[in-house]
């Protein structure tokens, strides 16, 4: 199907409607159709990005607040009380209820809103049509809906911060019974209702987006763009979408059962547990483990939803800036595929200490450790891509290399945690926090930063400031290691996560200064992110203008569009593709764009 039709067919089903729609975009665009209810994938991606940045700011701020409690448990911050009010801060200290709420909402916001919507929402929307040579998504309308559901999810979550009993405070995993029982904690009351509504809206948004990404990649590639000529970004975003489409519905089922337990007195997760002040529950025979299974069936693939786009972008940016073909293109695709399959087969490694049958546990250990194989393939391919490359240290490239570093550091501890025997000791300690923050949290953030710095010229037709970017990179990289490295030691010593105050525990008193050190670094690193936010918004309006179509000397199709592409991306025909995306330094030429026909005496990929 040709792209012209697809763009039209996306907007309306009948051809008449399509041409109507097309003209509408070519001629007059009001502020509302251009910036708010836009169906242009590039505008939607910017909406996702800026909403994601706002959420990253809020989520990061929350971590600063609870780190204040952890690092300075004896201090009183009276000024905070004036700013945040009595629910959050009392007598100058973060209240226990607020502490748990902050931890919960920080996790939820970062995993779902920032690293899922902000990352794959932004870059799938932006890069898929541009890199495969399509004028827009398969269904631009669904794409717009996807953003609006995401925004609604965010607003509902935001509103939960302001209810009287506070936002949900039972951890981002929302385990029953804390999530199923209104009387379990103040946060389990209306805060949890809003949390559930928000996440259900978010699931709808993800599904609408994910379906669209897959349909676009499989159906709307330009002439000559076979699957094995796709840039690795597209492959990664494709598998991300597949994982999302298959795993989010299962989370949805789990939430429906949760809603019935909360509101209609059923006993899926709740049993006759005894609660202080309430007595025994009337429920019978429910099992909280069932919720954990349903949750982690999404929850584990979710970490790959977060990580794969960063992997794809890292591969692309690294190849462009090392001026070398990516090492092992097919192995990269194969390992993405392997990760995609394995991600569905390992969920119970989150539940080793839940009373899981040790035999079942050993199967999950094996499958979990198998993930090390494709991960290692990817790491070695990145390292061999860098090897003897002609590296240009652009901010995007630095963040890419930082991503690989963090992925290795965090990934190695995954081998420890994936072992069910070691996990008995390490489960629910700071070791876990250190592991997943490095390998999926900060690493994916680095992938996101790399993508923003690299594609900012295409998004806004301007560059971001390099000096600020370098300061941002070095402080963030050092900060990430200084924050999370010490946590490994705390975790090995058995320091449990999610505790409000460690100073009253004889075993963990020794870490008071280490905790203060971590908290101080958190504040500095968070302040550095403000530098990035300033750089981002300043550069949109005042950044140095891009003067050539292809500033990085890259091969992929997005750099053949005009500097500020309109809706439809290419003026005139969509270019035809003749080669893969990684012909760098081939036959004595620095780069050969994908649109250039293969010469008679040239070897073809």
């Amino acid at each position, binding site marked *: 199907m040709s792209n012209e039709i697809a763009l039209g*067919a996306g907007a309306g*089903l009948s051809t008449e409607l399509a041409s109507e729609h097309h003209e509408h975009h070519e001629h007059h665009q009001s502020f509302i159709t251009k910036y708010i209810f836009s169906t242009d994938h590039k505008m939607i991606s910017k909406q996702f990005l800026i909403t994601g940045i706002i959420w990253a700011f809020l989520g990061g701020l929350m971590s600063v607040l609870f780190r204040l409690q952890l690092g300075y448990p004896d201090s009183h911050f009276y000024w905070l009380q004036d700013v945040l009010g009595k629910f959050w801060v009392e007598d100058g200290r973060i209240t226990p209820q607020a502490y748990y709420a902050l931890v919960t909402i920080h996790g939820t916001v970062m995993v779902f809103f920032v690293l899922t919507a902000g990352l794959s929402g932004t870059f799938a929307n932006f890069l898929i049509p541009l890199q495969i040579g399509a004028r827009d998504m398969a*269904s631009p309308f669904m794409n717009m809906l996807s953003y609006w559901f995401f925004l609604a999810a965010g607003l509902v979550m935001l509103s939960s911060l302001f209810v009287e009993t506070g936002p949900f405070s039972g951890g981002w995993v929302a385990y029953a019974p804390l999530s199923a029982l209104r009387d379990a904690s103040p946060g389990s009351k209306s805060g949890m209702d809003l949390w559930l509504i928000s996440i259900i809206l978010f699931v709808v948004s993800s599904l609408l987006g994910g379906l669209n990404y897959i349909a676009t990649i499989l*159906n709307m590639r330009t002439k000559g763009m076979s699957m094995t000529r796709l840039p690795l970004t597209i492959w990664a975003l494709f598998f991300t979408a597949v994982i999302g489409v298959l795993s989010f519905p299962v989370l949805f*089922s789990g939430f429906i059962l949760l809603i019935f337990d909360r509101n209609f007195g059923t006993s899926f997760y709740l049993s006759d547990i005894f609660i202080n002040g309430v007595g025994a529950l*009337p429920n019978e025979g429910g099992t909280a483990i*069932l919720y954990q299974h349903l949750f982690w069936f999404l929850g584990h693939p979710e970490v790959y939803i977060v990580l794969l786009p960063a992997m794809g972008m890292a591969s692309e940016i690294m190849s462009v800036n090392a001026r070398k073909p990516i090492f092992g293109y097919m192995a990269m695709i194969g390992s993405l595929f392997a990760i995609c399959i394995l991600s569905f087969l390992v969920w119970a490694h989150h539940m080793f200490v839940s009373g899981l049958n040790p035999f079942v546990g050993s199967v999950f250990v094996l499958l979990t450790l198998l993930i090390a194989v494709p991960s290692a393939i990817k790491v070695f391919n990145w390292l061999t891509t860098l090897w003897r490359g002609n590296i240009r240290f652009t901010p995007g490239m630095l963040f890419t290399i930082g991503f690989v570093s963090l992925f290795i550091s965090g990934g190695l501890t995954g081998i420890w945690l994936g072992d069910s025997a070691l996990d008995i000791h390490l489960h629910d300690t700071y070791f876990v926090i250190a592991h997943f923050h490095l390998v999926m949290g900060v690493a994916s953030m680095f992938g996101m930063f790399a993508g923003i710095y690299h594609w900012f010229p295409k998004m806004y037709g301007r560059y971001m400031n390099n000096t600020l970017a370098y300061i941002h990179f070095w402080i963030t990289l050092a900060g990430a290691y200084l924050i999370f490295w010490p946590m490994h030691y705390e975790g090995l010593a058995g320091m449990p996560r999610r505790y409000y105050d460690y100073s009253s525990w004889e075993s963990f008193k020794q870490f008071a200064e280490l905790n203060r050190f971590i908290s101080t670094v958190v504040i500095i690193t968070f302040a550095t992110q403000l530098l990035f936010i300033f750089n981002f918004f300043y550069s949109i309006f005042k950044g140095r203008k891009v003067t050539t179509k292809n500033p990085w000397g890259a091969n992929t199709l997005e750099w053949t569009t005009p500097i500020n592409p309109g809706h439809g991306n290419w003026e005139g025909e969509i270019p035809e593709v003749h080669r893969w995306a990684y012909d760098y330094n081939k036959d004595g030429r620095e780069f050969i764009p994908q649109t250039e026909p293969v010469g008679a005496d040239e070897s073809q990929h």
Partner: protein
Amino acid sequence: MMAVTETSNRSKKIHPHKFLMWMGIGSICMMFAGLTSAYIVKRNQANWEDVQLSPVFLYSTFVIIISSITMYLALRAFKARQMLQYKNLITITVILGLVFAYLQYIGFKGMANHGVLLIGPGSNAAASFLVVIIGLHVLHVLGGVVALLITFFRAFRTKVKSYSPVPIEIVSTYWHFVDILWIYLYIFLYVAR
């Protein structure tokens, strides 16, 4: 010109919207797979009651199978441009869809009258699962009814005439899917009880 390109390309590649529908179906399948596997896990634990399915659910199975046949005939009529027949068949399909939803409701009402506590305090998960699974399926059928009505009225617009069978084909795919899904769920709930 656009229409020409579209028809010439249709033979080669699946329409993106149809493809979207198929993937949406895959995702709905995952949701029900999640629920039915939760059902199996729960059944193997203590406190599982044997709940008899209402015989009304068998009648509703016949109704939805017939509606699938009328849907198929409606699509054929549309392609043959027999618009009157198409109109009638779609109306019958919509009515059958609503009858199906009503029968499911009657089924639950009958079970409740026979003393089965479906939800609420003291209810058993065996019964509550039926409400969740069958209830979610009914919502999907009702979604199909809405989609049918929309395509139905769009096909009769006078301002712009559309001869494209794609929208109605997509709805019919979905309709057959919820039919097959119900047959699976019915057999599953009957056997796995």
